[in-house]
């Protein structure tokens, strides 16, 4: 579906802005500069305001995604349930570093709360969410999924 079609589904009201951006992110996998300009034009907003909203959310990309992204929650409750141990485990397994972009296929990132605090620690591989991850089980999840 083209961006025009997405835009036509929503009225140009401020409360629809986030929904439009989410829809574009879902379809195109990321929000490109030209898309952002079109959204800004449609809502009569400056480009800077649309971009700062889009870049605020971890689950929206403002750059093209070419790798699998593994995200681990860094929210308070998940950290209390030792999500950093999971991060360390993934780093050891895949020999990558948190936030580092040098691996050709995978990137490890932290993300903010998904609202699944009771199910923590939470991690995501691309769109797939994994709950109650343990350092012992994370190896299997990753090897299965990649």
């Amino acid at each position, binding site marked *: 579906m083209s961006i025009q079609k997405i835009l036509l589904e929503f009225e140009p009201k401020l409360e629809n802005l986030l929904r439009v951006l989410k829809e574009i992110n879902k379809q195109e996998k990321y929000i490109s500069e*030209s898309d952002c300009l079109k959204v800004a034009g449609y809502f009569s907003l*400056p480009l*800077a305001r649309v*971009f700062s909203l889009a870049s605020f959310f971890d689950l929206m990309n403002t750059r093209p995604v070419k790798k699998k992204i593994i995200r681990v929650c860094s929210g308070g409750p998940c950290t209390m349930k030792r999500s950093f141990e999971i991060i360390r485990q993934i780093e050891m397994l895949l020999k990558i570093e948190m936030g580092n972009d040098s691996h050709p296929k995978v990137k490890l990132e932290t993300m903010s709360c998904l609202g699944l605090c009771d199910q923590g620690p939470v991690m995501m591989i691309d769109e797939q969410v994994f709950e109650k991850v343990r350092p012992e089980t994370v190896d299997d999840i990753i090897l299965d999924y990649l």
Partner: protein
Amino acid sequence: MQIKINNKPYNCESGETIFSICKRNGIRLPTLCAHPDLLPSEGVCRMCLVETNQSKGLVPSCVQKVSEGLEVRTETENVNKARKINLELLWADHAGKCAACLRNGRCELQKLAKEYDIDGFKFVPRRKELKSENELDLLKDNWSHVVADEKNPCIARDSQYCIECRRCVRICREMQTVEAYGTNYRSSNTNVGTPYEIPLDCIFCGQCSAVCPTAAITEKDEIEKFEKALADPQKMVIVQTAPSVRFTFLEEFGMPPGTFGEKKLVAALKALGANKVFDTILGADLTIVEEAAELIKRVKNKGVLPMFTSCCPSWVVYVEKYYPEFIPNLSSCKSPQQMMGALIKTHYAKKEKFDPKNIVSVSIMPCTSKKYEAARSEMKASGRQDVDIVLTIRELARLIRKKKIDPIKLEDGKFDPALGISTGAGMLFGSSGGVMEAALRTAAEKITGEELGRVDFEVVRGEEGIRCAEIEINDLKLRVAVVHEIRNAKKMLEDLKSGKAQYDFVEVMACPNGCIGGGGQPVPTSPEIRSARIKGVIVRDKGMSIRKSHENPVLKKIYKEFLGKPGGDKAEELLHTKYTNRKNIS
């Protein structure tokens, strides 16, 4: 209502913040994000923390409203400790390269760091102080979001100096409605910058560089070019100085705002080695004569009305980028700087038998946008760029300090008389409403053909965003408006579009209070400082012997010898310009 600050009672009204009461009563509170042009404050920097009897923790005084029975303490041990830690955190995120920094000595962060003795790097260790490998990441992390923007013709950005105070974001959004900046990403990755890291796409007004507490946003530095021209014996360096900079120049050297510093400015320029120093006021007078002629022509021939002034390049770019349908309304006259530039490289060069190739035309401006204007492709009346180098007053002061010249101790200088006689009308260009008043003085005489007795048009003076007046000259009624700041200009344009307002002649300046509050003027700036500067301008106009533009003897001579009559062919060729639709089509 009464509250207690440091055990002393003070009167206040409900709804006021602690910070504003302290400021009014001369109690100093450190701040890096609050700015008198940006109210209400946001409480970002956490430097103005105070202790109160009504809350357990410390509160930021710039957002905390007063309430009955409030007792505030501004300098306790707790407060100072918290401020120091917060300042250290900001300092850790900052480049800290003070010696080579453009704002060295004028940086608000540096001043506070000095005051609070910030010398340690507790949060980001330096290389020799590293204790473990993990700390290396801290060092790296600190530099992961550095963006340097050199592509904007007027404004240079370097985010390693940025402390994310959001002043630039707010002034661009609230005062100028352009919103070129945004606060991007989140938490520790937050950075203030442009979307997709494109070069800053704006109207070049430079207000962001005037409010920036550090050197993250500065004017584009062209000192080197100027020094090179001065050092070249082949080149003839001709400098012109804008009407408003003579009232702000001495602020850079410690004098109070509004001090008239024309003579010291000229002396300092001569001491730097400029061959000739001319006065842009002559250009302003030319602008007025041409603009008045154009206005009369438009009114008589039922041309496109209202006519907008075109002296402010930021306003011109704003119309071109956001309201291209109003381009025919812009006066086709060039700005004083460009008229002067065109005259120097044509008339003056011919008269004095210089090759225009060897002239380096430099202008000293209160404005960052003039750099862009000088580089516009239309501004080539002499066949090459009319004005080669544009320096803001901050750059000039920096150069003067670098050369160890103290302008206050210099003997008074004088403009070179060839193009250096000024009038009161031209002097008024420095403040908002000045162009209008100067134009009315000339237009009224041209229409009636009689000498004007009283020359002060007080109705167009003042500090409101939009000032309207109706002026009767014989049986001709002129509806005029004076607008400053783009937010007011936008409102004016929308009113014109919807038919809510009707004007014949509108003056617009993009910066608060006109050029006197320009983006290249000395920092800091505030409404009080600007009104002191305006006072200086008005006093000076009163004291001038020639107060009307068309009575300038040099100008009369130039028209007689060179240009013909106002609005004539030669004038049209040299002093008028065209505009282009620059709207972003998406």
